[in-house]
């Protein structure tokens, strides 16, 4: 066994431990826990048995198994990055919207601003 395999296997175990810990702390869902545990197990399997990727690489027309893993990993990382950027942008907009609403509603309290989205609660 190569030293790098040992290091990576240890890191994957550490990652699985973190995932389970987050699930126990109720920070992530059961579905997400399953996804990440399986993800790290598959990664560990590939690292321990690198030749296992050769079969899939040949079917897909990629020269080496390692190349296939790199291509797929890059595709996954870029997709995850895109999703994160979209989420981040959505959150930024929502925070700004909330900030604006709070600022304008504080003016309602001061009778300077009548929010068109808020109906008057008076009965007269």
């Amino acid at each position, binding site marked *: 066994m190569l030293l790098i395999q040992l290091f990576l296997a240890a890191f994957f175990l550490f990652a699985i431990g973190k995932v389970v810990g987050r699930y126990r702390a109720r920070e992530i869902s059961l579905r997400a826990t399953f996804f990440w545990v399986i993800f790290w197990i598959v990664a560990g399997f590939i690292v321990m048995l690198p030749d296992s990727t050769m079969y899939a690489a040949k079917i897909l027309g990629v020269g080496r198994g390692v190349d296939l893993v790199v291509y797929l990993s890059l595709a996954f990382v870029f997709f995850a990055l895109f999703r994160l950027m*979209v989420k981040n942008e959505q959150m930024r907009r929502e925070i700004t919207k909330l900030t604006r609403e709070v600022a304008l509603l504080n003016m309602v309290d001061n009778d300077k601003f009548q929010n068109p989205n808020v109906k008057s609660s008076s009965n007269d």
Partner: protein
Amino acid sequence: MITVILPAYNEAKNIGRVIGGLFEHGFVEIVVVDDGSTDTTAEVAEKAGATVIRHPINRGQGAALQTGDVYALSQGAETVAHFDADRQFNPKDIDGAVELLRTKQLDVVLGSRFLDSRSKIPWFKRRVILPVGRLINMLLTGVTLTDAHNGFRVLSRRALEKITINQDRMAHNTEIVSLIKKHGLRYTEYPVEVVYHEFGQNVGGGMRILWDVVKSKVISLKS
């Protein structure tokens, strides 16, 4: 009625004088959007007689302007002027820009430092940063202007209803120009004086603006 909107972040030292200057020039509806300042900007602005809207946290100049626009629309404003809170603009220019907007029945009048010789622009900014900014703006918006990222603009109610600023930080300038083109708004440029008390946007700031614009084009969330 002209509503002057001043986005302000930590401008306690300047805001009082800016508001005073605007009152002296006959503007009565002055709205300061305090963008989560950590100094006494809001208090000073209120004392000076402006209507103050306070963002509880800092969201950027674009976000503050949009808050001011929403408020102005709710108050039935017919014309709005975007004006900086750091004493760099001359209140006199608002009159001329508004007159141009009304006589030519335009939707937007954009301030330009390059249409007369009143502005003393630092050499690096005049020769390097702004020409590059102009070129990038032209490529991104398809609109050719003599100036880039000038915060002075006058907008009609029609323009206010069409333009929603989603760029929270400084890229809102580019976004506004894009929206002017997208909605077919009638616009022109008007010479304004800019006095530099600080350098303003540097190369790093410009890169950040470019990143914000490119990011918004790549992600392209619906408004």
